[in-house]
């Protein structure tokens, strides 16, 4: 138990100072890039915080949506790509819809997520990134996404199963899965789309390779 003196001591101690970052030393390069690529009106933001107040998951983010827009204006690229914000965002479009200046906040965050996915930076919310990745892998394999195969593929990704067993949620999820199978809501076998070759080709082309 803390005594009064100890409490006061902890109050009086100076807070660890963060290294101050310079503002305005990065130029407009990143801002212009994001505005050009998304068509979002990032410069118009006047920090009213309406996006953050509308966001249903802002308390799980380290950089709040209005701050993310400011970071883009300042060109603080690597802070954004390292943040949990871009992965926690649900793309529910509340921020975009209620922005008084029609800054496409969700579009900006989504585009940052795209940039992060193609960069060498390890995502802060790795599990969320891995889930998206798995979804696309399953989609590429059969053209349609079967929930049973998706969940199996996700659990077999490195570290996922380990974490689930450690946190104790694995047993519950296994039972849930079995119940779903029994109820007929999970199908072990998928129906394939016949145009899978075309889809795979489109993937390679979208990556920038010539087929």
């Amino acid at each position, binding site marked *: 138990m803390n005594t009064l003196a100890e409490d006061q001591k902890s109050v009086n101690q100076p807070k660890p100072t963060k290294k101050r970052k310079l503002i305005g030393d990065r130029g407009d390069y990143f801002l212009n890039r994001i505005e050009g690529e998304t068509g979002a009106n990032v410069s118009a933001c006047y920090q009213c915080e309406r996006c953050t107040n509308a966001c*249903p*998951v802002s308390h*799980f983010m380290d950089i709040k949506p209005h701050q993310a827009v400011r970071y883009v204006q300042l060109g603080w690229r690597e802070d954004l790509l390292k943040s949990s914000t871009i992965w*926690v965002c*649900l*793309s*529910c*479009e*509340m921020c*975009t*819809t209620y922005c008084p200046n029609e800054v496409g906040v*969700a579009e900006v965050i*989504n*585009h940052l*997520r*795209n940039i992060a*996915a193609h960069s060498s930076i390890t995502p802060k*919310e790795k*599990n*969320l990134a*891995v*889930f*998206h*990745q798995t*979804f*696309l892998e399953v*989609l590429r394999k059969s*053209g*349609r*996404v*079967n*929930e*049973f195969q998706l*969940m199996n593929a*996700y659990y077999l990704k490195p570290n996922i199963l380990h974490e689930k067993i450690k946190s104790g*949620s694995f047993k519950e999820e296994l039972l*849930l899965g079995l*119940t*779903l199978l029994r*109820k*007929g*809501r*999970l*199908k072990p076998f*998928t*129906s394939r*789309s*016949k*145009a*899978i070759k*075309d*889809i795979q*080709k*489109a*993937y390679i*082309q*979208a990556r920038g390779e010539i087929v």
Partner: protein
Amino acid sequence: MKLSFYPGCSLEGMAVDYARSIDAVFKALDIDLVEIDDWSCCGATAAHSLSEAMSVILPARNLSAAEQMGLDIVSPCANCFNRLRFSQQMIQKRVLDIPWPVTGDLKIHDMTRFLAEPPMIKKIEKRVLKPLKGLKLVCYYGCQMVRPPRITGYTDYENPQTLDRISAATGAQVIDWSYKATCCGASIGIARREIGDSLTKRLLDKARQAGAEAIVVSCPLCQSNLDMIQKGRLERPIPIFYFTELLRLSFSDRGNPKWFKTHFTNPVQLLKTKSLL
């Protein structure tokens, strides 16, 4: 009347009950739904999160197939509808080269708005055999169906009315509430359980506070989120219906408890106390 139908991946798996009820309802309303030839996944959230190009190209394949059939598309899934509409707008703006022949001229309906148009509502009201009297409902739309308005075309995106109108046509009592279009967390619960749970629990609490006995949804993911979280946890369960299940129930004079056997929160008891089953 003939329409092409884009079911989406969920309707083959998690939302089989939605698929079955859609079949029954559209047969009863004399509307032909023709499944799009060899449809493929629209990419959902993963595609636009990791590769914006694929989020246009993947739905474009389905649009192309529907154009060859020459029929307007109706989509039951909120996210599929959103992605198809988004892809259509990008195709019309010619932002990307699409490997499939596609013009983007077709109309894309979302199923709730298609059924909530005045002539369809009249048709539904005529077809109702057993009004769902005394059933207190709140309608939950989710995010992807109504937002962003420039893509979905909803003008009343803060207080959408389509599901409310359809549910009212079946004779149920529809309660107004403030969480119609608040996000349920979508697939985030798979990787980050606590985020998904916090969002879904709030929705259920608010529905209970509004005095609802059941929630009506139109999105497969919203249904499974709201339904599965109630598995053996909450003391007063709230059944989650697809709106087509309610329509199917009101269209037949004697419902079948088997229709609801895939639900986690079994609505049979609630329906029996209201003598609707």
